[in-house]
């Protein structure tokens, strides 16, 4: 492993710090890289990038590894923030983290590292990458399984791909859910390409968050007791509204209309409301309201007090912008899906016809929000997913 150069994305948080420490301990030639994706202060939200940068650098010093900074502010603005703003303007609720992984971390970052001489990259995501075995059985489409001989230990699970040499490997690599179901971050990673996975290590995939905290303390890392960060500040729930106002200007207030077509109040801008959302409506008294629809041209938000309203529940999901990590599954395949990070997996049947991908769910779920991702699993394996229309 001495000869395998791994560039670790150090964010200044505990997860990426432990990632670097584990790889160092295993004998990889590790370099830490801080990705500067955002540094702008926003009103009431000073950007903590410098502290994070210094924490990342300090971890590199503590581990005795080289440290670099890559400036991807232009790429992050162009590929993530602009996409996010366009989606909100269109009345949808995007996942900037999904886009950040697709466009920044597992694209420009990966490319920059490989250009700089890295063999592999690693991040502190809770997920697993494993070589696949193709097992073609009778009428079924290929089923993805990871090699059982290398399932549960980090060393073993990463060893095959190292031993064979990542650049020349003909093996296929798949994305799998993390050991820690509670922390599993595959929801945000389903748009990563197979080629990127081939060059990626996720050492934390076989650890739980409490185990990672313990390791951080064991390694005596400066980030051991650092609070969980939400990544880029405005992506967290608290900041998004202020950020949208900052970027798009103050929004027009408009009517809130209930299930009977009666105006029940006013809203501060339709873009701030998320379909299925219960909070955020300043309408006094009575039952809670749920957002069931938005008319962006009329600047109206439609709500209901009826938790059983048919608009709030669905058993079919139609997806656009489908991405499959490995081969495309077949219509009729039985899969599991989730429409939110950490949501329970729901059994579904896949229907791919004439360019549209539809999932028929075994149980009704709360209506998925347009713009959000639906991620499709086959047991532990992530097949891919798409954007809810």
């Amino acid at each position: 492993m001495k000869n395998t150069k791994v560039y670790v994305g150090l964010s200044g948080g505990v997860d990426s710090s432990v990632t670097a420490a584990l790889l160092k301990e295993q004998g990889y030639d590790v370099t830490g890289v801080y990705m500067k994706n955002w540094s702008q202060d926003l009103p009431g939200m000073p950007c903590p990038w410098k502290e994070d940068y210094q924490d990342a650098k300090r971890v590199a010093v503590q581990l005795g590894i080289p440290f670099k900074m890559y400036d991807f502010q232009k790429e992050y603005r162009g590929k993530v923030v602009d996409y996010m703003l366009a989606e909100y303007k269109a009345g949808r609720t995007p996942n900037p983290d999904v886009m950040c992984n697709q466009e920044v971390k597992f694209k420009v970052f990966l490319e920059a590292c490989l250009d700089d001489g890295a063999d592999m990259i690693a991040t502190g995501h809770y997920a697993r990458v494993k070589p696949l075995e193709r097992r073609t059985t009778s009428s079924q489409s290929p089923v993805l399984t990871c090699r059982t001989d290398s399932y549960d230990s980090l060393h073993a699970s990463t060893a095959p791909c190292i031993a064979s040499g990542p650049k020349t490997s003909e093996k296929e690599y798949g994305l799998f859910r993390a050991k820690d179901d509670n922390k599993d971050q595959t929801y945000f990673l389903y748009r990563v390409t197979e080629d990127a996975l081939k060059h990626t290590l996720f050492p934390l995939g076989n650890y739980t968050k409490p185990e990672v905290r313990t390791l951080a303390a064991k390694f005596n890392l400066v980030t051991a007791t650092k609070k969980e960060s939400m990544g880029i500040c405005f992506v967290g729930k608290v900041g998004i509204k202020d950020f949208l106002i900052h970027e798009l200007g103050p929004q027009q207030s408009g009517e809130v209309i209930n299930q009977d077509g009666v105006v029940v109040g006013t809203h501060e801008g339709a873009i701030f409301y998320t379909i299925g959302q219960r909070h955020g409506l300043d309408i006094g008294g009575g039952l809670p309201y749920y957002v069931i629809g938005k008319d962006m041209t009329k600047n109206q938000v439609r709500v209901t007090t009826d938790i059983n309203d048919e608009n709030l529940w669905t058993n079919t999901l139609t997806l656009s912008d489908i991405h499959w990590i490995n081969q495309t599954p077949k219509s009729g395949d039985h899969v599991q899906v989730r429409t939110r990070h950490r949501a329970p997996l729901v059994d579904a049947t896949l229907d791919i016809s004439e360019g549209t991908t539809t999932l028929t769910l075994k149980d009704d779920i709360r209506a998925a929000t347009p713009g959000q991702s639906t991620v499709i699993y086959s047991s532990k394996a992530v097949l891919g997913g798409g954007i809810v229309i």
Partner: protein
Amino acid sequence: MKTIYLDHAAATLLDPAVLRQMQPYLTDQFYNPSATYLMAKKVRSDVEEARTRVAKVLAARPREIIFTAGATEANNIAIHGVMAKFPQAKVLVSAIEHDSVLEIAQQYNHALVPVDNFGQVQLDELKKQLTPDVVLVSVMYANNEIGTIQNLTAISKIIAEVKAERQKNKNPLPLYFHSDGAQAPNLLPLLVKNYGLDMLSLNGGKIYGPKQSGVLYVATGIELEPLIYGGGQEFGLRSGTENVAGIIGFSFALEKAAKKRAAEAKRLSALQHIFTQGLSSHVPTATITTQSGALHNVVHITISGIDNERVMMELDEAGIMCAVGSACSASSDEPSHVLTAIGLSDEQAQTSLRFTMGRSTTEANITRVINVLARLVN
């Protein structure tokens, strides 16, 4: 791990003897000095005793001592105080002033006086810039980054000549001389009259006293516009109930600094010599910025090719605390204006480290720092 602290220009330990003097005022002697019952009057008289104690060190009158919350506030009161009275006039400040002088000067009609490669104010430039509309000159006594000590006497002589000229030309605009002396008291005399100073700022946090304590000396006859309005404390120049414990602490800290000054200057001068000699022989890539004749506790260096922030962190991991001389290239901060002013390039500035010694520093400390630094950068 036993740590070595070499950032005394940033903060000093609170002297336990000073803390003992402060303690009663944090607890039992909590009374508002402006109240008229006897307990409060006793506190008032203790505050006035502290004022006298400070005045003695400066060879000034007690009435000339204004207690402030640190030197930043003192600098702001001084510059705002004059400039708000003479809004059409101009303030001259040296190019290597602390931000607390530069930032407030920038609020008014101002100009920067350049320094030479050693950080000394260029006196011929100062003369040129002393136009008839200048009302205030502010030049720091000793620089906090590179340790340059200014020739205050020479500057005040130039100022006196300009004042005489103005009298002759019937120019009624006064001309005042202020100095930020935050780094001075441990090592330099503070006899304000000798330097022709009209105002001097001091900071308790750099002299083994409490943080957020300080003094502005204001010579008799100078009228300042206050920055803070209220109950009229500190002769109307700094309203707000007195920080009594801070005032008491400052006064004892300053008194002790003055007592130890000569011996400390001699001791630290020797250590400074050992430090710079050791660097020359063991860290050949190091260039010493601090010139001879500078403040005896400062050793500012650049080491070609290093990432100063990383070396600072590595020293810290080895138990040695120091400062990066300037922001590193990764941050979007500007490089130190002080280093730019003395002619260092941005690249040089980003390789700089600052060590500032103090009462706890020993020769063994310095030997260890040189060994660790040599291991890290060679």
